[in-house]
């Protein structure tokens, strides 16, 4: 870690510790949801940004984690145990999903993930064991080692600690040989396969890890929100982290985090001034997609390049959310390439 990086993190840590004093207990609930969103969005970016996996149903694992905590909180499970359970449950459900979608790619895969999440949503509405339509209220974290979590400040620290752990985990994953290989799989799965990489298995592992992160975020949400309901599994809950990635920039590790903070603030504001935040979120998403496809964190790069008016070294430049998914048939502005050798077996291969 660089000296600047370490100093930055230290400053951030101080800020986070002092935060309750700085802004007052009343505001903390918003910030709780914001940091949980940071974790959730970062976990989703393991899929979109690193692995190139278009999952539109991550709320499934988020919701499953939330429900897991809600159920065991009623039995006064200690908080760390409950959160680990949420993480594990999220991972298990994600793993099962990856088995169901094993052979699917692209749009089929995206639709299957969406459908599975909606199926779980429907299930949650129907099962009385899960509280049915109304969900499970009254989720509260039992005291731990003398800490009383009904105090907003303590709850804040709980969230910060676990989100930090989660982010650390995803940071390490991204920097690991596995993360590097995932990146390769995203760019050219065929090439990766012919280097000996079992592409489907790697995607399944990535999917499971992301599910763990989502589950943990859901578990934290349960304690903070104190109510868990089927809405936590609805498709809008899956859409939110995706918009956060788009907003912040998927190329950057901190992209989802920045996007999460920005969008949370925006949603908070919008909910106060209008009944239909969907409209404005949609417009925002379009603007970002068309104008700043690499997200907010790319602004410095865009400005710098505009100033120097040079082509960045490396040809077509860096990637946007849409172009990286490893699903593209052709890069932008090219015509379909002639089939090598004219052999029928090559049809459809990029």
């Amino acid at each position, binding site marked *: 870690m660089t000296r600047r990086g370490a100093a930055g993190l230290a400053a951030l840590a101080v800020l986070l510790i002092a935060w309750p004093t700085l802004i007052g207990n009343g505001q903390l609930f918003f910030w709780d949801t914001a940091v949980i969103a940071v974790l959730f969005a970062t976990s989703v970016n393991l899929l979109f940004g690193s692995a190139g996996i278009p999952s539109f149903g991550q709320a499934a694992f988020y919701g499953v984690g939330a429900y897991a905590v809600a159920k065991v909180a009623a039995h006064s499970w200690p908080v760390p145990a409950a959160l680990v359970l949420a993480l594990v449950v999220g991972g298990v459900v994600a793993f099962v999903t990856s088995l169901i979608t094993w052979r699917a790619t692209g*749009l089929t895969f995206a639709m299957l993930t969406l459908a599975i999440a909606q199926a779980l949503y429907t299930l949650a509405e129907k099962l009385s064991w899960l509280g049915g339509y109304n969900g499970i209220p009254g989720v509260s974290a039992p005291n731990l080692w003398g800490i009383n979590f009904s105090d907003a400040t303590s709850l804040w620290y709980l969230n910060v600690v676990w989100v930090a752990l989660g982010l650390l985990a995803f940071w390490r994953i991204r920097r690991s040989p596995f993360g590097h290989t995932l990146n390769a799989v995203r760019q050219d799965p065929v090439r990766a396969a012919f280097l000996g990489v079992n592409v489907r298995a790697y995607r399944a592992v990535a999917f499971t890890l992301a599910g763990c992160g989502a589950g943990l975020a859901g578990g934290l949400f349960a304690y903070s929100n104190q109510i868990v309901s089927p809405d936590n599994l609805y498709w809008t809950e899956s859409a939110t982290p995706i918009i956060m990635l788009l907003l912040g920039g998927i190329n950057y590790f901190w992209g989802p985090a920045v996007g999460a903070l920005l969008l949370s603030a925006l949603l908070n504001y919008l909910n106060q001034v209008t009944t239909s935040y969907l409209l404005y979120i*949609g417009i925002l*998403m379009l603007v970002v997609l068309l104008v700043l496809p690499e997200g907010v964190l790319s602004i410095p790069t865009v400005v710098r390049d505009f100033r120097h008016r040079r082509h960045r070294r490396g040809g077509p430049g860096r990637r946007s959310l*849409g172009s990286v998914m490893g699903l593209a048939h052709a890069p*932008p502005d090219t015509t379909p390439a002639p089939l090598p050798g004219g052999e029928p077996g090559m049809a459809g291969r990029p």
Partner: protein
Amino acid sequence: MIILATGLTDGMLIFLVASGLTLVLGVMRVVNFSHGGFFMIGAYLAYELMRGHVQPVWLFVLLVLAASAATAAIGLVSERILFRRLYRLPEVTSLLGTYALLLILEGAAQLIWGRNPVTQPEPSGLVHAFSIAGAQVPRYDILVVAAGVLTAVGLQVLIKGTELGRQLTAVAEDRYMAGLLGVNVNWVFAATFAIGIFLAGLGGALAGPTLSMVPDIAVTFILQAFAVVIIGGFGSIIGSLIAALALGLLHAFLVNKAPSLADFSLYMLMAAVLVVRPQGLLGSRQLGENL
């Protein structure tokens, strides 16, 4: 019998939506998530024209067509503004961009018509039910099924039998080559999109009397439509028809025999087909397939 009738009706509605989706997907290679939004707009526009009053059949049909045309017009505008920029981009970008459009459409509908359900009754003369084989079959269903059959036949005729259809097929196969051969690709795209959105609006306007209208029907129907398109197989209109009818029938069957499972009918169908055959019933490859 009631199962058959309801199943066919629901299936036909989904088919109407799915057919437009398949068309746009196949010819333009754009994954149009907002298609469900146009379905919803069609429903609401029809409602706006009829304001919840019972209409005579001929007027009803006229207004439905008017609503569909209006929806198609909105579609053309969005084609010009948004979709033109998405054509050369990979499928997933268009997925996200059209998703944003869906949010916009649903949001706008929420603002204009509110979130509370509204209803539009069937036209007079089709309100009650026939008695067929001992079961009560709603007369309105006949209209819907007829519309679906007409659409299926009409599309086949269009694609196989007309000049436009030939151009559509050419562009779907290879838009670059088609352009070289003199086809005005932009125009074909606009026409395809207009037809596709018209069908979505038609589906919505016809669906009005069968459901309780809230903006969120945009999403319920898009999920079903997409699922049907994928289950039926990429680019196959007949495939979508089969899948849509299968879905409608399965759902009706479950509502009758095992109601608690009925809401899962879509997922069951998806699992049954897509896990085993990811390219769908009549499809040859998955969309966005790599390895």
